[in-house]
């Protein structure tokens, strides 16, 4: 069984359709991660560095959303972006961008919570240090964000891995569309795995699962190695 699966995995790796699905998975979740960083980093910086009423409540909401079930989020988004939904005019249903937007909402709490936490962890000592060296409030904030770098990297990896491994949003928003050579395909690794399991083609599903795990592990290992190499893991 193991040998068969390994052989099948190697065969599938050279299959253009599988390569297409794999690249789409990376692309869709990569875009989701970039969007989440663009939206999440300013929110995290504001939550960590500014003092305003309701700040703790907002932080609690983001923390609570860390565990939101992907199917629930997928369902809500489906209702919103369906052709007759409030946001139906955006035309996001059954598109790669639609999946990316959905995954972005899923992983936004990861980016915000992790980055807020990493800034707050170094906040007092770095703030004091910058102040005592004559830095302004703005220069101090920049120093804090710079020191929270390893937290941002960790948040990015965790967010990407969560996005690429989720099924609910990809299935409900993407619809698992696949036509060989088609331009509007939305099939990704997780939806493909679900489909092959439903068809009873377990070996193919396992092979796709191995590819998915390989992607997740590779990114984590690469990031860890780079951080260790440059001493960024020591905060």
């Amino acid at each position: 069984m193991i040998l068969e699966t390994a052989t099948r995995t190697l065969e599938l790796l050279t299959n253009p359709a599988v390569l297409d699905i794999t690249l789409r998975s990376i692309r869709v979740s990569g875009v989701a991660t970039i969007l989440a960083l663009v939206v999440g980093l300013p929110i995290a910086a504001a939550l960590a560095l500014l003092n305003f009423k309701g700040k703790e409540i907002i932080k609690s909401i983001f923390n609570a959303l860390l565990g939101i079930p992907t199917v629930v989020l997928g369902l809500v988004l489906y209702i919103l972006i369906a052709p007759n939904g409030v946001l139906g005019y955006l035309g996001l249903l059954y598109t790669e961008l639609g999946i990316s937007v959905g995954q972005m909402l899923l992983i936004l709490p990861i980016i915000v919570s992790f980055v807020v936490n990493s800034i707050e962890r170094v906040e007092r000592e770095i703030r004091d240090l910058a102040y005592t060296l004559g830095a302004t409030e703005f220069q101090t904030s920049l120093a804090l964000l710079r020191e929270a770098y390893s937290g941002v990297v960790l948040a990015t990896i965790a967010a990407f891995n969560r996005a690429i491994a989720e099924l609910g949003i990809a299935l409900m928003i993407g619809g698992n569309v696949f036509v060989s050579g088609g331009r509007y395909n939305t099939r990704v690794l997780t939806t493909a795995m679900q489909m092959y399991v439903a068809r009873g083609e377990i070996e193919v599903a396992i092979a796709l699962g191995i590819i998915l795990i390989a992607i997740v592990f590779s990114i984590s290992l690469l990031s860890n190695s780079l951080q260790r190499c440059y001493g960024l893991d020591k905060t």
Partner: protein
Amino acid sequence: MDLIKLERIWKSFGSICALRNVSLNIKESEVLTIIGSNGSGKTTLLRILALLEKPDSGKYYFRGKLADESLRGKITLVPQKPVVFRGTVFYNTMYGLKVRGFKNAKEKVRGALKKVGLEGYEKRNAKLLSGGEQQRVAIARALAIEPEVLLLDEPTSNIDPNSIPAIEKLIRELVDDGMTVVVATHNLFQAKRISDRVVHLHEGKIYSVGSVRNVLEEPKNEVTRKFVLGELYY
């Protein structure tokens, strides 16, 4: 005129009173050492002097004027636990100069590193240095901005014994060059070696201020005498 004058400073953290009615004068170009047991208020006093904490009440004058946050940088603190920025030793030592607009200050950085015995360390990753080396980076970083007052919280607590004489010699040299240095320590031998004047702080209150002889060798105050003789439990 005194460089710094503290008048009736009180500071509490919740129910803990860290400083009680502390009044203190600090002269220009002297080494003033604050001695006291753990929890006596030494660090709080240094943080107030560094303008990192505001007293609950009392006045803080610098050159006769009320001190405010614009003095940060002129008065700089090296904390007990060495804190370094992510980046090279050069980046760390340059930071204070950079935030003040100096762009080409390599000589100042090199000079500061030389003073603490870290010549050639410029390109090393500060996070990967030992605790003692990080402490010396922290001192170099403070020296690079040429402050008027240097506050050192237990400056040799993380440094290997062989390097302590060099740091103590550096403190004396800085004062000879006109800097004012305030050191918090519970090492009485070090206080004897480096101090012009000594302050004994106990449970947030000053019990003695004066020369090494008056405070450490022949203390008149009973609490100070017990502390110096090791009879004060902490």
